């Protein structure tokens, strides 16, 4: 084995071709009242997967629209029954604990009873995410060999819930532990052919990646201290003292730094976690995405999309304003407006795919390399996985994956 030998990954997708495909498939989705979305998603994934190469060979996506549609129908049957009974039952139980509220805070707490359905849905969303990932891996092939993932969604659900609670209770201090352990669970249950991925490394090594979030939080804290001090020192009349302005500047700077810090953390924890993954005990990976580039892609993409969105909605607003009142409130008027808006949303969806999602995938792929690729040659095929619900739960619960 030679770990110095390395095979680079690359992304070859084109803006124009993907935009045409995305726009065409989302218009078909509107025309078919949403049913075509399963085929739309399939075709876009086929395009994106086929644009990713490692060395000379491209990935292949083998999922079908039909199995997604069927998986969705199964999910609807299960969820309609589950949600109806569980939500009604929880609400009924909640009613037994209501007392007359004595102040606004208690009243607000009691409004929470009305949102009790969240407790019914939250574990399902985590479940749906794992199953969607398992389905995607089961339908991805490289050199004709299937990827795959174990049937272990519920183990992921309770771990994800416990880790989130622990992170919340420690005010985010154990975030690296959550990131690492959940990624390790996912990685250790993933396979390429008959070989397994293993996540090595340790969770404490992710702490350097958190530093910018901490700096930002420190700055926000500082702004609070400064504004309290400024208020205490300020005489009557001078409302905008230098202290208050300094506090506002520090708060804005702190929040921006936290956002930057979060992206930095995502990028650098991804680098560490990827570098410590091993396939078949011999094949390694190197990932070198950059924080600046990731932020650049977001900002450029959002700028382009908001300019186009402003233009499109301006035109639609103009068109609807031209209608006489009697037409615009009639049923036909509602339908025309709804179709215009859906068309505009389809356009914006295609733009965000082309200007945010695809460049992001391209950046992460282009900065990835496989070490000791010779170790792949001995990997053998794995058995076909029915793929659970084919992402049906994720679709029904609108978990919201980009592609």
């Amino acid at each position, binding site marked *: 084995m030679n770990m110095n030998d390395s095979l680079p990954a690359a992304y070859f*997708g084109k803006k124009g071709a993907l935009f045409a495909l995305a726009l065409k498939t989302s218009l078909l989705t509107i025309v078919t009242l949403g049913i075509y979305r399963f085929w739309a998603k399939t075709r876009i994934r086929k395009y994106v997967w086929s644009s990713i190469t490692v060395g000379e060979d491209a990935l292949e996506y083998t999922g079908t629209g039909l199995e997604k549609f069927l998986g969705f129908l199964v999910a609807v*049957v299960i969820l309609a029954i589950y*949600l109806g009974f569980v939500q009604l039952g929880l*609400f009924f139980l909640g009613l037994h604990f209501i007392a007359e509220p004595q102040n606004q805070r208690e009243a607000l707490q009691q409004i929470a009873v009305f949102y009790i359905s969240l407790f019914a849905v939250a574990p399902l969303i985590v479940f749906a995410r794992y199953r969607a990932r398992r389905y995607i891996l089961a339908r991805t092939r490289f050199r004709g060999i299937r990827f795959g993932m174990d049937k272990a969604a519920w183990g992921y659900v309770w771990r994800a819930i416990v880790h989130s609670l622990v992170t919340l209770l420690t005010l985010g201090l154990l975030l690296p532990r959550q990131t690492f352990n959940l990624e390790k669970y996912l990685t250790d249950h993933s396979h390429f052919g008959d070989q397994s991925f293993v996540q090595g490394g340790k969770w404490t090594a992710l702490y350097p990646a958190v530093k910018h979030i901490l700096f930002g939080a420190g700055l926000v804290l500082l702004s609070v201290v400064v504004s309290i001090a400024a208020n205490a020192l300020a005489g009557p009349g001078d409302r905008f003292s230098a202290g208050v302005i300094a506090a506002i500047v520090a708060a804005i700077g702190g929040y921006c730094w936290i956002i930057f810090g979060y992206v930095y953390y995502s990028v650098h924890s991804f680098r560490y976690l990827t570098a410590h993954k091993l396939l078949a005990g011999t094949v390694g990976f190197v990932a070198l995405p950059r924080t600046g580039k990731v932020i650049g892609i977001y900002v450029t993409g959002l700028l382009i999309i908001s300019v186009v969105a402003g233009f499109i909605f301006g035109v639609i607003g103009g068109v609807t304003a031209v209608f006489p009142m009697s037409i615009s409130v009639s049923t036909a008027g509602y339908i025309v407006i709804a179709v215009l808006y859906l068309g505009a949303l389809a356009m914006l969806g295609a733009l965000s795919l082309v200007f945010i999602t695809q460049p992001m995938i391209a950046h992460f792929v282009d900065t990835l390399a496989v070490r000791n690729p010779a170790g792949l040659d001995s990997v053998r095929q794995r058995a076909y996985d029915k793929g659970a619900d084919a992402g049906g739960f994720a679709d029904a619960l609108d978990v919201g994956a980009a592609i």
Partner: protein
Amino acid sequence: MTEPSGTVEAAFFDGETAKRQVVGIAPATDRLALMILREDAAPLRWPFDRLRALRDQSDKGRLTLTVAADTEDEAPRDAARLVIRDKAAIDWILRTRPGLMRRDIRPGTIRSVALWLSAAAAAVVVMLYVILPALADYLADHLPVESEVAFGKSVMKQIEWMVGEDDRIDLRCTAPSGLDALDKMKTRLIRDRDIGYDLSLTVLDHEMVNAFAAPGGQIVIFRGLLDDAESADEVAAVLGHEIGHVAARDPTRLALRAAGSAGILSVVLGDITGGTVIAAAGDHLMQSAYTRDAEAAADDFALTLLNDARIDTAPMAGFFDRIATMTDQVPEYLSSHPLSADRARHARANAATHMSTEPILSAAEWQALQSICDGRARPNPPTSE
């Protein structure tokens, strides 16, 4: 372009190992198949009519082939792949093999789609229109009255805080003579009828022209309604309507139904573009259909109360006529209430058959009711110099 002569180089993956094999490809001598010539194994024969290509690929300079085969996979395809990069060979295959992009669908697929489609539709319709309403009605009947009253008080507090600008101020109107008039109205309407709750009436000092029934027999009337009403009999009609909701346990039943059906429509719509808005609109339509029936029943209940108390229902018709100009702009199927014009017609028809009536309150009592909010401790208005 003519048929390529000799063999062309391609990459082959046998579907069993991840090893990349360099192979030669050429048409078979009988012109019915593509031959794959491997270095250390027997040549493979892929019949032209079963040859399939991957669809929606980004690289036009690469053609990936496989063969249709009766496998258990997601699509009936063999696991082996042949990747061709030779431009002439790609052009020739694309030009001469029209079946290359065919989707092969297994028999029985349509049946299973139809089966699950009807199962999904049945599950949603039965849940929303049969099971959840029945279960909500059953649970509403089995909720202890104390819990229902507490729930109602919570709802009322929330409404009070929503309409009030300052949550520390009590909006309840308590002028004693007004309360007496209200009490008289209640007694004349209900008489010795059992409506299942101790009815509690509250007037809130707010200009909204509205009234509502909260769970547990609690009815709220806004001052705006008293200001707007042209007679005490109009207020009696509104009160009768709200008592109808109370007697039918509507507030509790409808809250339980809404809780159970929340999110089911958005599940049906799934990850569709603009789905959130459509789901909200659909939810509104569904809840409106539920409540329209309840509203019509409450109107009927009100007419019974008013007739039994020998109160004229023509003012009720007048009230609906006045609000029709505001409410009937919206088509009925979008509205939570029946059309006001229809409700007015209904009340007028009733009034025509019940002639011997007397007003619910005397002029003095009506005056007292309209001033029920006078003298309420209001926040000090800003002092102007």
